């Protein structure tokens, strides 16, 4: 990033003032850069949060499964014991235990509220199964359960875990694509603004050439201006975006995915990457625009 330092000088020497400030393009560049940086912070948050979510779902659910006992009330206890016996003797099962009433209430509370009359509801018994690292053979377990406890249904979470992880990964991809699009739009807008500035300063370019300026020198005068504007706009936008993210509600277990949006730990440094990145985009876009325009003005 050291190559950026000459562009970020605040003191205005003659070299910095060779290209006269033009209000329209200057404001457009700063505004575009700020708006894109603001959006980039949100895209970054989305990408990071969905990444965390996918990892969590994959990690938490990968080695756990549930056995549900749905049987006539008189047989529930016997089938539960039979199912637990089968599970205890199944290779690959580390632990199996039936959830008590409080745990079941805690599971249902987010959906039905705290005053749930569990006793009056015909709820199935749930057995939480923890696997070993090697896991168990789900097909043979299903067959054994069907023989010993006909009301037992094994749910190894595969059916709904995979789509959830796929959805989370796609959301993460969407965030990355959004960041790429934001970078592309920023580059396009700055190229347009730089082209407008170059066209408006045709006389400046002619005078500079007349006194012996090389095209690289002329281009650098414009590049310096636009890189600084891109950086300062992005700094402002990223700051606002980060403040907005910081003001979002904290993650709550009952709040679902939306309250988990935000940065965690070292992730708070990511927004600070946006302004230098915007400066690089502005640098590249203006170099490109200047090269094209100066070639055309031969």
């Amino acid at each position, binding site marked *: 990033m050291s190559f950026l330092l000459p562009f970020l000088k605040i003191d205005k020497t003659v070299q910095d003032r060779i290209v006269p400030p033009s209000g329209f393009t200057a404001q457009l560049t700063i505004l575009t850069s700020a708006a894109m940086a603001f959006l980039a912070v949100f895209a970054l948050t989305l990408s990071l949060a969905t990444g965390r979510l996918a990892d969590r779902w994959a990690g938490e659910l990968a080695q756990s499964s549930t056995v549900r006992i749905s049987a006539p009330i008189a047989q529930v206890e016997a089938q539960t014991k039979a199912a637990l016996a089968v599970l205890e003797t199944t290779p690959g099962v580390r632990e199996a235990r039936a959830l008590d009433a409080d745990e079941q209430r805690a599971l249902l509370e987010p959906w039905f509220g705290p005053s749930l009359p569990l006793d009056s509801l015909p709820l199935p018994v749930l057995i939480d199964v923890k696997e070993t690292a090697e896991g168990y053979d789900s097909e043979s377990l299903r067959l054994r359960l069907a023989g010993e406890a006909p009301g037992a249904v094994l749910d190894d979470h595969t059916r709904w875990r995979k789509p959830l992880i796929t959805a989370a990964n796609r959301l993460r991809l969407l965030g990355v694509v959004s960041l790429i699009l934001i970078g592309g739009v920023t580059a396009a807008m700055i190229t347009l603004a730089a082209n407008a500035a170059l066209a408006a300063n045709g006389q400046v370019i002619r005078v*500079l050439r007349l006194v012996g300026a090389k095209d690289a020198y002329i281009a650098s005068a414009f590049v310096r201006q636009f890189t600084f504007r891109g950086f300062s706009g992005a700094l402002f936008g990223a700051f606002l975006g980060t403040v907005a993210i910081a003001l979002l509600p904290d993650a709550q277990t009952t709040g679902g995915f939306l309250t988990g949006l935000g940065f965690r730990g070292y992730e708070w440094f990511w927004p600070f990457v946006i302004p230098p990145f915007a400066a690089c985009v502005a640098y590249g876009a203006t170099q490109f625009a200047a090269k094209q325009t100066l070639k055309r003005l031969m």
Partner: protein
Amino acid sequence: MIEFNNVAYGYGGQDLLTEISLSLAPGSFHFLTGPSGAGKTTFLKLCYCELQATAGRVQLLGKDTRNIARDDVAGLRRNIGVVHQDCKFLDHLSVSENVALPLLVAGKSRDETNLNELLAWVGLSERADALPAELSGGERQRAALARAVIMSPEVIIADEPTGNVDWEMSLRLLQLLVELNKMGKTVIIATHDMHLIRQAKSQVQARVLRIANRRIQQAGVDL
């Protein structure tokens, strides 16, 4: 120094200059004259590579300008000072900043003493911080001359430098250009002011180049 070898320049299928062959020696002083639209400015533009000849060969300071690279043109311009009738300043910079512009683009440091001496030489010491728009016509021409010579170029080209100034200022500008010629610089002045050319007679050995009918017709006529 500057050599034209059977040079022609055309635009839109029409020749504006043709069959130009001449050689301008180092340290020489030339007036370029002719009626309006004869091609004086076009000829001068060929002399500082603003235009490329469409036929023939132009050599500037020993460099063939055919297919010359843009960066080489910049290098040539640092050795050829140009004064335009409309001066061509950066209007948002002060007089001293405009005068020092060639140093800046060449990456040379600005020596304040030399700059002040140069501004004093053209009589603009008091106007150093003024903007170009605040200068009179004569002051603008003198500032343009100071800018043209700040890199100590080998050739000074002036396109109608006295077109917008009174007679007294014309003489002042002529005197400055004669001084530069006496310092060994090659000077080319485009003008249709015959009084000015006659006035120069007493001060310097000059040649008059007359452009008419797309050709230089009186090359080599001394005053």
